[in-house]
């Protein structure tokens, strides 16, 4: 379908597609198997200006808008979700700085992020604070001109590799969710170390690691926004990033569909390519329809975000839930169509299926996001619209 992309959006799509084809596809299986972090690819993405699509031009970015960003994520996700997770998590980590950072902090950090020289990570999750983010136990106490952080963040994407971290910690536990605050912490800050690196089912080239803060001292002005705004920062950040996870689901589904169609045209059984059989055709038809529906939703939500709509929690949750469920279903069906070959590492769809699962879990499980959508429906009905 023609989504009437602008000239710039088409350039971004073509560029991301070329990088995916020439630099990601040839190495994705090895990176997956050995858990190699995709620094080489991040470098290329930086040189190609794609690391700064979400960053304003005054801070060295391209300011290409949400839809362009979705298109880039989609293309990278067709090739490798580990790479696109690294890429999208970088934007996730940048959003708190973009929305709540002082001009001075933006000038300091954003140009290096836009050029791909330094990666960012967003740190919210803890052992006892997943879907229930109010369970955060990491604390930050003001001591003179510094905040002192203590606690452990868990499962942090880009952890250890990133040099800039946006971290949510409690400045006043007695106030519950209103006692959280957001900070920017640089790698190398005294008392900031890394814990266990996770061995994962999928997205194995992306880094997932613990952040350990032991009397970690950071300058007072590394606070983003004001004390007590931590949850607002986190929610606004996630509202912006969730559509991107939807685009990852769209991308991996589209990539798996391409593989399934290609295989079904080549594989001959009973004297015919299996794409001629109705059982296969109907599966492919459902997969293709789901991919197109996911794309239509993700692109529409991105356009709504660009248009300046204030509240898009509900629709960005919808884009994430729908498109990542599509990602899981279509990759599973692609493995089925490839049959025994699909189950083998020689073909890319088994990796796609393993990778797709995380999309239904991170940045809000699809169950929690259905709560978000349901609560919004309730609120809207109460308001009478």
């Amino acid at each position, binding site marked *: 379908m023609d989504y009437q992309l602008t000239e*710039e959006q088409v350039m971004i799509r073509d560029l991301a597609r*070329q990088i995916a084809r*020439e630099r990601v596809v040839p190495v994705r299986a090895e990176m997956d198997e050995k858990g190699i972090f995709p620094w080489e690819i991040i470098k290329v993405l930086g040189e*190609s*200006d794609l690391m700064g699509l979400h960053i304003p031009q005054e801070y060295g970015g391209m300011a290409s808008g949400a839809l362009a960003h979705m298109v880039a994520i989609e293309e990278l996700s067709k090739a490798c979700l580990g790479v696109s997770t690294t890429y999208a998590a970088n934007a996730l980590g940048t959003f708190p700085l973009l929305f709540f950072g002082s001009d001075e902090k933006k000038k300091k950090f954003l140009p290096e992020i836009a050029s791909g020289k330094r990666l960012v990570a967003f740190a919210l999750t803890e052992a006892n604070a997943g879907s229930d983010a109010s369970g955060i136990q990491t604390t930050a106490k003001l001591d003179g001109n510094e905040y002192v952080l203590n606690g452990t963040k868990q499962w942090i994407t880009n952890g250890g590799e990133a040099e800039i971290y946006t971290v949510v910690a409690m400045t006043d536990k007695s106030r519950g969710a209103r006692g959280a605050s957001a900070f920017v912490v640089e790698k190398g800050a005294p008392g900031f170390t890394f814990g266990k690196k996770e061995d994962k089912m999928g997205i194995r080239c992306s880094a997932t690691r613990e952040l350990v803060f032991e009397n970690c001292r950071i300058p007072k002005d590394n606070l983003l926004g004001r004390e007590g705004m931590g949850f607002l920062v986190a929610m606004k950040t996630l509202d912006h990033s969730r559509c991107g996870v939807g685009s990852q689901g769209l991308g991996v589904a589209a990539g798996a569909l391409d593989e399934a169609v290609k295989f079904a045209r080549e594989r001959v059984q009973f004297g015919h390519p299996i794409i001629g059989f109705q059982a296969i055709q109907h599966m492919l038809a459902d997969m293709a329809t789901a991919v197109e529906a996911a794309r239509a939703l993700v692109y529409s939500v991105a356009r709504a975000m660009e248009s300046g709509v204030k509240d898009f929690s509900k629709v960005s949750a919808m884009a994430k839930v729908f498109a990542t469920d599509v990602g899981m279903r279509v990759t599973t069906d692609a493995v089925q169509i490839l049959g025994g070959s699909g189950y083998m590492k020689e073909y890319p769809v088994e990796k796609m299926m393993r990778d797709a699962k995380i999309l239904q879990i991170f940045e809000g499980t699809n169950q929690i996001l259905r709560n978000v959508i349901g609560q919004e429906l309730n609120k809207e009905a109460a308001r009478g619209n």
Partner: protein
Amino acid sequence: MKIVVCVKQVPDTAEVKLDREKNTLIRDGVPSIINPYDRHAIEAALSIKEQAGGGTVTAISMGPPQAEAALREAIELGVDEGVLLTDRAFAGSDTLATSRALAAMISIISPDVIFCGKQAIDGDTAQVGPEVAEFLGIPHVAYVRKIVTVSDGAIRVERLMDDGYDVVDTSLPVLFTAVKELNTPRLPSLRGKMAAKKAVIKKITAADLSIPEGELGLSGSPTQVNRVFTPEARGGRKALSGSLEEQVSALAGELRAMSCA
């Protein structure tokens, strides 16, 4: 540092077929690409400019108007400007006439370094680079596989040979031709793509170069294509391994078997 890189638009030979009757390439419907060796030349030109901390890289090409696309692609990669020699008078040029025209254009630009690919994948002559240098009266180093040092007025390179490599020191201006071992060509950037879209490609005609009419195009091309043929496949080959004695005895065995057959 002023650098010129010569770029040729060629049919993608991975997809091209031969017209068996006319002995020519069937170019219809075949996508055009930048000659792959020229991509290495472009990369080298850009990295020399970056190392030198400034300067300009000008890509020049001779060809039909659609060859402009190759120059825009070069600009996407970071080349500063594109110059296209395009004129009916250039049509039918062999390597000599092509080199004469390119050299005339390059002498107007007067660069410090000129980069070409070692050869084009359609003609495969590997003549144009060195011929341009001869017309300009400057040194050339063909088959450059590494740029070792770049300093004021001198460059040290490694030249790939069948049996190893030569280290060559050269003064400037100089012309190099690039082999694929030289570097990994970069991918375009978004800013480059935007610049390429807006770029004005300078068009140069025969009249701009003040070359006598008889020295251009078909009339300036002494090359006659007598016959085009596919070389016969060589016979079977085999590599022997093991100790010297084992190899000698295996070779003797092979030779005996052949004379029996």
